């Protein structure tokens, strides 16, 4: 097996009395997407800042693209792209000027910087905004430009710190599409997110962090299997025992009735939901709402702490978790 693109061992970092990171270790295989999943303040951003040479760890060490993040910072910087939580583009420059500046800082030369800037603006659907100053950009456009800027020098490894936090659903979907395109091109991605569904959609492996510790890691499938499956919930217009019974029988033996709704496990997620919708239509019963419900992030945490014995590959550091 090849050397990991990102490898962190026992990273710790405190800010005064606050222990932001207690013990975080992770490995990311080249060409894969790793999601660092956790609540606000779990230590996601601190981890990313250490891995991207912005912050020194108090303890532990990390290698990115085979170089030590502390001792060989410039080697690391030449090979990574970073998109942080806060917009990092110059408000008073237009999109093309921002990208060109970054390109020149990466020593691509004036002509190449200009060409790459044009290509990236096309790739991220920002051509119409070429001459628009960034302060006039929408939130989604800023994030896309930020992502474009991280890519100008063709980095091997991309760090995305909460790339979709605060975006509206449409911009969020656009961001996901952009990230998937990059991954298809072979870029290794480490992203942080508070959203389980985002990690699920984008990541090959998920590392769950809580209070500065890795509490679980594995593939999305492994992780979801450990915390329970999504379920489908059918809500009727009113409480009608006969119809409720019909729906309950349709949804199988694990179905449960509560109030005017019936819920049942949806092992295939969306596919199960589609099947259920089709069957309900055939049945011809009046339906108020049908939806898929996922375990929330809170459930993930309670699950990984409560059922750590059958959690996916519980991390060595779990022992120290509160």
């Amino acid at each position, binding site marked *: 097996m090849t050397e990991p693109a990102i490898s962190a061992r026992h990273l710790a970092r405190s800010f005064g009395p606050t222990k932001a990171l207690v013990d975080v270790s992770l490995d990311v295989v080249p060409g894969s997407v790793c999601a660092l999943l956790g609540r606000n303040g779990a230590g996601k951003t601190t981890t990313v800042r250490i891995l991207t*040479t912005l912050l020194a760890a108090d303890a532990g060490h990390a290698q990115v693209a085979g170089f030590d993040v502390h001792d060989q910072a410039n080697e690391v*910087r030449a090979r990574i792209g970073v998109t942080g939580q806060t917009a990092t583009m*110059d408000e*008073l*420059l237009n999109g093309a000027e921002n990208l060109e*500046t970054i390109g*020149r*800082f990466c020593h691509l030369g004036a002509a190449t910087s200009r060409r790459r800037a044009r290509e990236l603006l096309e790739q991220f659907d920002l051509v119409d905004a070429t001459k628009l100053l960034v302060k006039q950009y929408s939130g989604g456009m800023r994030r896309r430009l930020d992502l474009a800027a991280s890519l100008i020098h063709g980095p091997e490894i991309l760090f995305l710190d909460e790339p979709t936090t605060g975006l509206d659903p449409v911009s969020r979907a656009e961001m996901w599409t952009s990230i998937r395109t990059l991954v298809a091109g072979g870029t290794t991605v480490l992203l942080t997110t508070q959203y389980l569904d985002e990690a699920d959609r984008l990541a090959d492996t998920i590392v769950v962090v809580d209070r500065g510790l890795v509490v679980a890691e594995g593939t999305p499938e492994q992780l979801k299997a450990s915390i329970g499956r999504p379920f489908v919930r059918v809500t009727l217009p009113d409480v009608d025992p006969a119809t409720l019974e019909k729906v309950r029988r349709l949804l199988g033996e694990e179905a449960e009735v509560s109030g005017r709704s019936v819920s049942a496990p949806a092992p295939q997620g969306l596919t199960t939901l589609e099947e259920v919708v089709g069957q309900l239509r055939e049945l011809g019963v009046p339906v108020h709402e049908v939806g898929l419900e996922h375990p929330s992030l809170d459930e993930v945490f309670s699950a990984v702490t409560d059922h750590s014995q059958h959690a996916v590959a519980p991390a060595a550091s779990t022992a120290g978790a509160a």
Partner: protein
Amino acid sequence: MTARVAVQAERQLRGGLLDAYTATRRFLIRGMRQPDVIFGSVLIPVIFVVLFGYVFGSSIRLPGGGNYRSYLMPGLFAMSVLFNSNNVAVAVATDMSEGVVDRFRTLPIARSAIVVGRSLSSLVLGIPVLVVMILCGLAVGWRPEDGLGNAVLAFLLFELFGYAIGWLGVLVGLLAGGPQAADVIISIPTFLLGFISSVFVDPALMPAWLRVIAYWNPVSAVVTAGRQLFGNTIGPPPSGVWSLDHPIATTIVLAVVIMIVAIPICVRRYSHSTR
């Protein structure tokens, strides 16, 4: 081995210069996009000319006699380059409070690039302000009376001093908690240095303790150097104040010392500011 080190050093130097150029270019584009700031920094010196040249100047008598406004103008040139450090401090503090610094720090650029770019761009952006002041000066009767060569030399001296003081502005911007804090912190020394000096009045008329400060104030040396080179010197020079007897040498030495001390501190401070 030494050859390889030399090659690497040369590459580093070239990279550093290139990065400084890129940063300067960025700050210049930014500067041009802030017409309100440009307007303000051009307007304030004009107001100073009117305020001190006419409002206060009408009741100021020079000990040796002579035209107050031609005494005042070299002082105002020095004031304008001195106050430029306020803009630098606020701009650096603003940069540091924005996400853009994180972006720069994750790029493989020379550690000095951003601060050098900031100080160079403010030097360039200060030139139109100085031009406006020169025009104002000429309009109110000030003249360089010792030839064009010496006048150019005087302005180069002012710019050298302004560039050096600008690095103190960079330092304050890096150390201050935010743009407003930076503005307050830098304003205190610039006001004191600007006013307790020979910029506006002859220190000969000040109380003894203040007079000593005003004479030895480096800004007085800079202004005196300007007045000498412009041929504007008015009033008898005080005796026993070395910096006023050798104002040109004092200005150059002072500027070089400030840069030698401040630049490495700024570069270090910038690259370690959150680590």
